[in-house]
């Protein structure tokens, strides 16, 4: 059980980090600038937020199959594939929530900051502080979706013991085997993990409020 939990944390941690690293800048950029085609991009992001994760899992599997376009990578049924699928699922969430947070900023704020003669890098830092609450909402949402993902992770990971088995796929497996005590125990660990992480993030989010 410890091995499965540690692997869950590792896979989900990496996926969250990548989704945030890619999604936060993208969300901020989409939120601040207007350019031709922005509306289309934002619609895509919003659709992505509602996209069924299991379909993402199916699409990634089909890309990675031995006979598929990316089959030469040999990445199917590996933790790397699981991270990839989870990033694709969480990315629209991060971008969508971030750009909404940026969009909620007072339009004069940017103007005021610029007239004060504040350098570019410091302006970015101030922007991040202003949308702190929204950013953390994006992180919590992404974390939640990544930790709870079953279908896509099962599809691209294969639930291989010792290699790609994580908490969610184990719970599903034990449920289907009728071994409910194991399923419940793993379920308790997963819920506990989610609660602790979400609580910690909430403290950070709300702690900054004056």
């Amino acid at each position, binding site marked *: 059980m410890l091995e499965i939990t540690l692997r869950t944390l590792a896979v989900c941690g990496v996926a969250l980090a990548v989704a945030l690293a890619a999604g936060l800048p993208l969300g901020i950029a989409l939120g601040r600038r207007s350019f031709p085609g922005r509306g289309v991009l934002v619609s895509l992001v919003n659709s992505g937020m509602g996209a069924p994760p299991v379909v993402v899992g199916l699409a990634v599997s089909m890309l990675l199959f031995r006979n598929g376009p990316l089959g030469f990578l040999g990445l199917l049924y590996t933790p790397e594939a699981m991270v990839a699928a989870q990033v694709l699922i969480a990315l629209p969430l991060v971008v969508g929530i971030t750009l909404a947070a940026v969009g909620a900023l007072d339009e004069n704020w940017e103007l005021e900051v610029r007239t004060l003669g504040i350098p570019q890098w410091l302006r970015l830092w101030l922007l991040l502080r202003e949308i702190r609450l929204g950013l953390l909402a994006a992180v919590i949402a992404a974390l939640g979706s990544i930790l709870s993902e079953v279908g896509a992770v099962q599809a691209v990971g*294969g*639930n291989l013991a010792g290699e790609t088995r994580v908490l969610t796929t184990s719970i599903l497996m034990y449920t*289907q085997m009728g071994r409910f005590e194991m399923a419940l125990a793993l379920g308790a660990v997963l819920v506990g993990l989610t609660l602790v992480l979400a609580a910690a993030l909430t403290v950070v989010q709300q702690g900054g409020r004056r």
Partner: protein
Amino acid sequence: MPPMRSRSLLLVLAGGLLLGAPARGEDLLLATTTSVRDTGLLDALLPRFEQESGQKVKVLAVGSGAALRMGADGNADVLVTHAPEGEQVLVREKRVLSREPFMENHFVIAGPPGDPAGVAKAPSAIEALRRIAAAKAPWVSRGDDSGTHQREQALLRAAGVDPAKPWPGFVSTGSGMGQTLLVAGEKQAYVLSDIGTFLAFRERTGLAPLSKPDESLLNVYSVLVVKPVGQAFAAFLLDPRTQREIGDFGRDRYGEALFRPLHLPAPGTSAEPAPGVRTGD
């Protein structure tokens, strides 16, 4: 007639009509193995059963181990499994009303067409496993306490391998036969499968059937009735017409039948007598 009496008469008539209407058959919960579902056999047989009996069948495809547990707990009405030892336990403990083997086929050890461990040349299945273990060849296991998994464990033990400490390259999916075959296909690994699911997935996996059918690979499917509502389904499976259909299933698609029926009436004889309640075999 005074209004009050004609209203109550109408109610009585309506009630009578409802009660007298042909009773719809009760729904049936069938717990079975993924290997039976993945071959498509149930999809082929169930429509006629549902039409003839009026019963609607809810199919739960889990491993034989889970299906037998469901039966023991009374959570299913009828079981179709292929784990004779586990089935016998239920019969001995009188948790099922009957057990009737109704079809069989063989397990097959499949693997990469190149067959690096030399399985095709092995004189027996147990020797084949010994060679695979010795070569530390990649192997994909169900690991889900299913009938197939139980047979795999038994064969491994007979080959001198401790199932709890197999060789490096041995992976376990904890999933059904179809999924396990797909993983084996991806890894081009050896795998134990029932011949039915293997053939159904052959094109997708690119694996070759390597072992010769021998006694240790015999795979017998039985129907176990847990609750009386399941009797009709058991009778249906043993019925001559269904047995013939089972014997033909898969022939046009795969060139060979996936299952061998066990209760075919001999040509020229009359139809099989109705199966009695059997509690042992």
